[in-house]
């Protein structure tokens, strides 16, 4: 069995930052493995540990910088990695959900996985859409926002819980092959061991461009264009207590006493 895990390196913005042009200035960005994808990798690696002959392959759309993140997924137990990138992607202003799904689908068609795990969303763009779009392109079943997975490999069914709003979970049976978008909290992602990190350096990491995948630049065409980015004006009118920790804690204590919610 083969599990393909879509992995994204996401940018995190520091507390204080500046926007230049249409994005946050590069110097205020830190890159890391997308939190939801970390859970997706863990779910795949656990599945490979619990069953015989399961290969875990990660796929990433991203520049060379992303290899550090990809290696981290390999260090946690993925067997090999595919990275999609070329000059056309480097030059693309905006990657639509459609384009990302198309690129990932091209890789999936080569890999022919039995299962695809995607994070529910990426922490930076928060589209929350790529996994289900990918399933549709692959003509696979899918389930979005999965927080429990019980896989019946023989029966070709994934028994999943989908985390709905308001503390309700939907119990769903999904035929495999399927794309599952993995919710945070489904498992406890491991830390990479030193041995894992060493081994990761030896694991295959192939890079494919659009042409290698049988695609061309038209895949990246979008009717959507990013036109501005700005810091939202604070709608807040919070009273900020200032001073030393002792002083501010004193202010808050006085407030709580006045409010009558706390005695003493």
């Amino acid at each position, binding site marked *: 069995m083969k599990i393909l895990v879509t992995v994204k390196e996401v940018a995190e913005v520091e*507390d204080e930052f500046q926007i230049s042009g249409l994005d946050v200035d590069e110097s205020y960005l830190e890159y890391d493995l997308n939190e939801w994808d970390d859970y997706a990798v863990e779910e795949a690696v656990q599945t490979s540990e619990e069953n015989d002959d399961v290969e875990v392959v990660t796929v990433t759309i991203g520049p060379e910088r992303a290899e550090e993140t990809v290696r981290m997924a390999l260090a946690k137990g993925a067997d090999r990695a595919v990275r999609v990138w070329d000059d056309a992607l480097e030059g693309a202003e905006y990657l639509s959900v459609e384009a990302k799904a198309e690129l990932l689908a091209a890789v999936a068609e080569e890999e022919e996985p039995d299962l695809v795990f995607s994070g529910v969303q990426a922490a930076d763009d928060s589209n929350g859409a790529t996994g289900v779009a990918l399933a549709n392109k692959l003509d696979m079943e899918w389930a979005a926002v999965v927080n429990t997975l019980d896989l019946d490999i023989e029966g070709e069914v994934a028994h999943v819980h989908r985390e709905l709003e308001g503390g309700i979970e939907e119990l769903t049976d999904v035929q495999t092959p399927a794309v599952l978008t993995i919710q945070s909290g489904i498992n406890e992602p491991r830390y990479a061991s030193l041995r894992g990190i060493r081994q990761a350096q030896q694991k295959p990491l192939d890079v494919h461009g659009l042409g290698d995948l049988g695609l061309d630049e038209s895949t990246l065409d979008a009717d959507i264009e990013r036109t501005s980015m700005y810091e939202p004006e604070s709608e807040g009118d919070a009273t900020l207590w200032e001073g030393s920790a002792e002083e501010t804690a004193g202010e808050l204590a006085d407030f709580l006493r006045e409010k009558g919610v706390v005695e003493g």
Partner: protein
Amino acid sequence: MTVLAITEHRRGELRDVSYEVITAGRELADELGGELHLGVISGDVDAFADDVNRDGVDAIHTVDHGEEFNHDVYAQAIPQLYETSGADVLLMPNTVNGLDYAPAVADDLDLPLLTDAIALDGGDVTEVTREQYGGKVETTFDVDAEAYALTVRPAEWPRAEGDGDAPVGAVDVDIDEDAIGSEVTGFEEVGSGDVDITEADVLVSVGRGIEDEENIVLIEELADTLGATLSSSRPIVDNGWLPKNRQVGQSGKVVTPDVYIAIGISGAVQHVAGMKGADTIVAINTDPSAPIYDLADYGIVDDLFDVVPELIEEFGGEAPNL
């Protein structure tokens, strides 16, 4: 230009977002100079259609197939509704279920898709506002297409009120049962237990800023000292540091205490959905641009590890050594 908005229900009840997509859809249809149609799929469609027949709705299309949401049914029905209604713009809820069919439907119809819109400005080119980087920035996108798909964030638009008199028509869509590869077998309520945070008058809520499981005792001590109840944001529960029944937010509990003290919580939209109804909100967070301050009535922009021990001592407690 016709807007087709899709309603949402669960376990026999329409969800609030169904009324919100009417408002968002009506505004957009006005800007585009067109009609607003609604799609009601599965469940008691006649009763649902009656309920969402609000002022501003021009037509309602129902698909009577099955009781509960099933993404395979929605994914088959919506493209057919889209064609029969002559819609240009497809508007769907940015909910867990909305995101379980919207990307597939958009892909089938070959429509550009933007999710989680918080503002729309319709025109020859429609401008869509979204958040990025966890709400730290907002981004605008121009959608330069005749037809497109959008999902809109719940609770961003007010509910449509006022009775309408739109014609309701049952649409006989063709559902291929063999193409339904998923089955909803039930529901489970999670997060019940010994503590009911929805009953608390004062909640002391802890978030990612606490950094480490071992530090939770600090916030526990504060809650004990104040006679308050301990709650948390999602990452704390994801990490297994507190049980699910302590989680405030979209997928956890909705709370309305007199006082909500958010400690080390940035205030992501999913969290805010669970606590914005609190009477008074106090935030302790080092990041002055954290979205929690948009909502807070009072704030302390400082390190929780400095402020919380002082607060415990103010009330005669003893801060644990971390």
